[in-house]
C-alpha cells in the first residue's frame, strides 16, 4: 500500500456519546492490519465495544494511551504504508484540534457531526459569512430574517432599535441583549472562534456570561468520584438518635483542666471518637468492608478512624491509624494534628487511605443531622450534630420534669449489604449511651 497515512478517529458508537475510554490496544506499531481487524477496545458510558479498523495497512502510531478518555473525533490510531513508523505518540491535545472545534462551532454544529467524518477525501465545511464588516445602516444579513430571541425582539422594539442595524455576536449569529446596548458603529467583536490555543496555555475557564464553568479536578474530582462510587454501589441506610450529652460537655470541661491533656484541644469530638474506637471492638461489622470481587466481608481488627474535614479545596477524609490503641490524650493530639494539616491543605494521599470508619463533624456548621455518604472502603459513617441547649424530659426518683440539657443528634449511615438494621441500631445506641454516660471511656 502506498496510500498516505490515515488517522482513525474515535467514532460515536452509541447514539450521541461524546467520549470513550481506551481500554486496550489489540495491535502494536508495526503490525499489519486488514480492514475490519479489531484494533482496540473502548468503553463508553453504555458498553465496552471493539473497534474494527477502517483501513488496511501498517500501524504507524497509537495516538491514545490505554486508560485515557478521549472525545469523539479524536484521532486514535495512524495506519499507512509503514514508511514512517513512529514511537508511541500520545495525542498532545486529547480533544479535537482548535481549528476543527472553531470550524464546527462556526458551522453551528455543536457537538459536531458525529457520523460520517471518517475517511473523506476533502472535508468541506461551511460557516456564516462574516458580518463584521457591516456598517451602520447596512443590514448585516440582507438575505434572511434577523435572528433574535423573542425577549430581545421586545427589548429592541421598546428601545426603538432596528434589529437589522445591530451587529449580532450570538453563538449562531443571533442578536443578543448585549448587542442592543452596543453602539451600532462600534467595531464588530471578533467572530466567536475558539481562542488561539497555545500548547503551554493552561486550559482556560470558559466564560459565557451567565454561567462560570470550573473544571472538575483535584480534590473536587476525587470527592465526586468517591461519593458517586459509594452512593451508587453501596445500599445506604441512615438511622439517627437524639440524646442528652450534658454529662459529655461536663466531662469536656473537666478534661480541659486535666494536666494530662495539656496542649490538647479537648472537644466533644474527642469523646465521641473515643466511644467509637472502643465500641467498634464489640461491633466488628461496622468496622468491616464488603469485598465484592472476593465475595467476602473483611473484618478488621484495628481501627483507622477517619475524620471528614472541610478544607478550602473541598472535602478530605484523613484517618488516624490504629486509633483504638491510643490513649485518650494521644487520640486528642492526633485529631488536632489531622484537622490542622487538612485545613492547611497538606493532607497526603496515604493519610486518606486505609480508613475503616469515619466520623463527620457537622456541628460546627450548625447542623443537627443528615444522611452522610459512606467513605469508599468502609461500612459506616457517623455524623456528629451540633450540641444545643434544649428542653428535655429528665426522670429522677420516679418523676418526670423538664430541664435544660445539652442535646445532640447522631446520624449513622451503614452498608446494608452486611450490616442489618439491628446491628446498626445496636451500635448507634451503644455510642449514644456512651455520650449520655461517658464515665467509663476515660477511666
Amino acid at each position, binding site marked *: 500500500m502506498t496510500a498516505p497515512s490515515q488517522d*482513525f478517529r474515535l467514532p460515536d*458508537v452509541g447514539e450521541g456519546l461524546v467520549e470513550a475510554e481506551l481500554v486496550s490496544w489489540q495491535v502494536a506499531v508495526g503490525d499489519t492490519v486488514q480492514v475490519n481487524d479489531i484494533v482496540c477496545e473502548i468503553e463508553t458510558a453504555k458498553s465496552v465495544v471493539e473497534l474494527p479498523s477502517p483501513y488496511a495497512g501498517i500501524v504507524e502510531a497509537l495516538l491514545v494511551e490505554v486508560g485515557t478518555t478521549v472525545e469523539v473525533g479524536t484521532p486514535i490510531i495512524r495506519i499507512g504504508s509503514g514508511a514512517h513508523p513512529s514511537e508511541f505518540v500520545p495525542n498532545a491535545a486529547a480533544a479535537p484540534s482548535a481549528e476543527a472545534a472553531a470550524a464546527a462551532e462556526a458551522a453551528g454544529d455543536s457537538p459536531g457531526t458525529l457520523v460520517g467524518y471518517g475517511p473523506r477525501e476533502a472535508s*468541506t465545511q461551511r460557516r456564516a459569512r462574516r458580518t463584521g464588516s457591516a456598517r451602520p445602516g447596512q443590514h448585516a444579513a440582507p438575505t434572511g430574517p434577523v435572528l433574535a430571541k423573542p425577549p430581545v425582539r421586545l427589548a429592541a422594539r421598546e428601545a426603538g432599535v432596528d434589529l437589522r442595524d445591530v451587529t449580532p455576536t450570538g453563538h449562531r449569529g443571533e442578536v443578543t441583549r448585549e448587542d442592543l446596548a452596543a453602539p451600532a458603529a462600534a467595531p464588530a467583536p471578533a467572530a466567536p472562534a475558539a481562542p488561539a490555543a497555545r500548547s503551554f496555555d493552561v486550559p482556560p475557564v470558559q466564560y459565557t456570561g451567565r454561567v462560570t464553568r470550573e473544571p472538575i479536578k483535584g480534590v473536587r474530582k476525587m470527592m465526586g468520584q468517591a461519593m458517586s462510587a459509594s452512593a451508587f454501589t453501596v445500599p445506604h441506610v441512615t438511622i439517627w438518635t437524639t440524646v442528652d450529652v450534658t454529662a459529655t460537655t461536663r466531662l469536656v470541661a473537666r478534661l480541659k483542666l486535666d494536666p494530662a491533656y495539656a496542649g490538647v484541644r479537648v472537644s466533644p469530638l474527642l469523646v465521641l471518637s473515643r466511644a467509637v474506637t472502643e465500641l467498634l471492638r464489640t461491633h466488628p461489622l461496622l468496622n468491616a468492608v464488603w469485598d465484592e470481587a472476593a465475595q467476602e466481608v473483611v473484618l478488621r481488627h484495628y481501627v483507622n478512624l477517619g475524620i471528614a474535614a472541610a478544607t478550602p479545596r473541598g472535602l478530605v477524609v484523613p484517618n488516624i491509624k490504629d486509633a483504638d490503641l491510643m490513649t485518650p490524650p494521644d487520640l486528642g493530639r492526633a485529631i488536632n494534628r489531622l484537622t490542622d494539616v487538612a485545613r492547611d491543605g497538606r493532607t497526603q494521599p496515604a493519610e486518606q487511605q486505609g480508613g475503616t470508619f469515619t466520623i463527620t463533624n457537622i456541628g460546627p456548621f450548625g447542623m443537627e443531622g443528615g444522611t452522610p455518604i459512606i467513605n469508599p472502603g468502609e461500612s459506616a459513617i457517623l455524623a456528629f450534630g451540633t450540641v444545643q441547649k434544649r428542653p428535655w424530659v429528665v426522670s429522677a426518683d420516679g418523676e418526670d420534669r423538664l430541664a435544660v440539657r445539652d442535646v445532640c443528634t447522631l446520624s449513622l449511615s451503614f452498608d446494608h449489604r452486611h450490616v442489618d438494621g439491628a446491628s446498626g441500631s445496636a451500635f448507634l445506641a451503644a455510642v449514644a449511651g456512651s455520650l449520655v454516660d461517658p464515665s467509663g471511656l476515660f477511666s
Partner: protein
Amino acid sequence: MPDLDPAVDYVQLLTPEGERVEHPDYSFDGDDEAIRGLYRDMVLTRRLDVEATALQRHGELGLWAQLLGQEAAQIGAGRALRRQDFVFPTYREHGVAWCRGVDPLQLLGLFRGVDQGSWDPTEHNFHLYTIVIGSQMLHATGYAMGVQRDGAVGTGDPDRDTAVVAHFGDGASSQGDVNEAFVFAASYQAPVVFFCQNNQWAISEPTTRQSVIPIYRRADGFGFPGIRVDGNDVLATYAVMQTALQRARDGGGPTLVEAYTYRMGAHTTTDDPTRYRHSDEVEHWKLKDPIARVESYLRRGAGTDQSFFDQVAAEAEELGVHLREGCKALPEPVVTDLFDKVFTETPAELEAQRSEYADYLASFEEVGA
C-alpha cells in the same frame, strides 16, 4: 432462561445437524438448486449485517440494528413472497429487503442519517422501515383490507391475488397496536400474515416475561390460526410462510407465524447484551446456526462442490467492498428535500418557506478543504 428446545411444537424440516426431516403438514417444494439459492441469500445477508456493524464502529453509521442469527427467518419469509405481495418491515428486516431487491446501500442511508429511507416502497412492494414498535402492524392490516376492496383476493389468478406480510418481534407483541391489528384482521378476514421473529430478547427483556404462553398461541384468542416454526430453519420457514401466504391470497384470512429464532448480536450497536444475558445461552444457540446447517446439508446431503462455496464467499467480499465504499460516497442530505417529500402538490406557503430557507443556506460560505 427461556425454553431452549421446544422441538415438540415447532415445524422443522432441517435439523441443526443438516439432516432433512419430514413433517406431516409442511414440506419444502424446492430442489437442491433452490436450497443453494437460499444459502447464498443468507450468506450475503449476514455479510451485509457484519459489514454494516463494522461501518457503525468506523463512525460511518449512527446506528445499526443487527440481524445476526435471524437470516433463515428473514430469507425464508422473503423468498416465499410473490411479486405482488406487500411487506411492512420493522427496522431489522435487512434480509427481507434483500429478497425484495432493495440495494443494501439504501438501508445504510437511513442508518447514516442522510435520508429517511430512500427506496420506493411501491417499486419493491416493501414499505419503509418503521422505527416505532408495532405500528406497522396496523399499516399492514389496513393495506390488506384495501387489497380486499380492490378485489385482489380469492380470484384464483396467481398473479393477482395478493398477500400482505406484517413483520414484528416478540417485544412488539405486548404493544396495543399489534393486538388491535389482530382484532381488525380477524374481523375482516384481511389477507395478512403476521410474521413474528421471536428472537428471545426485547432489548434486555426475555420473551418469557412478555408472554406466559407461546406467542403463536395468542392467535387462538383472536380467532385465526397460529403456528410456530423453527426460525433458524430456512426450509421450514419458507414452507410455513408459503402456506400462510397462499391462505391469505385465497381469502382464508390472517395467520400468525412465530419464527422461533435467536438474536445472536446486540439489539442495536448501542446495546451491550453481556450486561443482561449469559454467554452460555449464546453458545447454545450457536449450535443451531441457520447457515451452518444448510452448508452441512449442501456438502453432505446434496454433494455440492467447494467451488460453489468459494464463489459465494467471493460475492460476499464484493458486497463488503460495495458497502464500505458506497457508504462513504452516499450523498449528503439536501435540506430543502424536507419540503419536497411531504405534499404531492406543494402549497404556496411552503414554496415561500422553501425559497426563503434556500436563501438562508446560500448565505453561508465554504471554509477549509
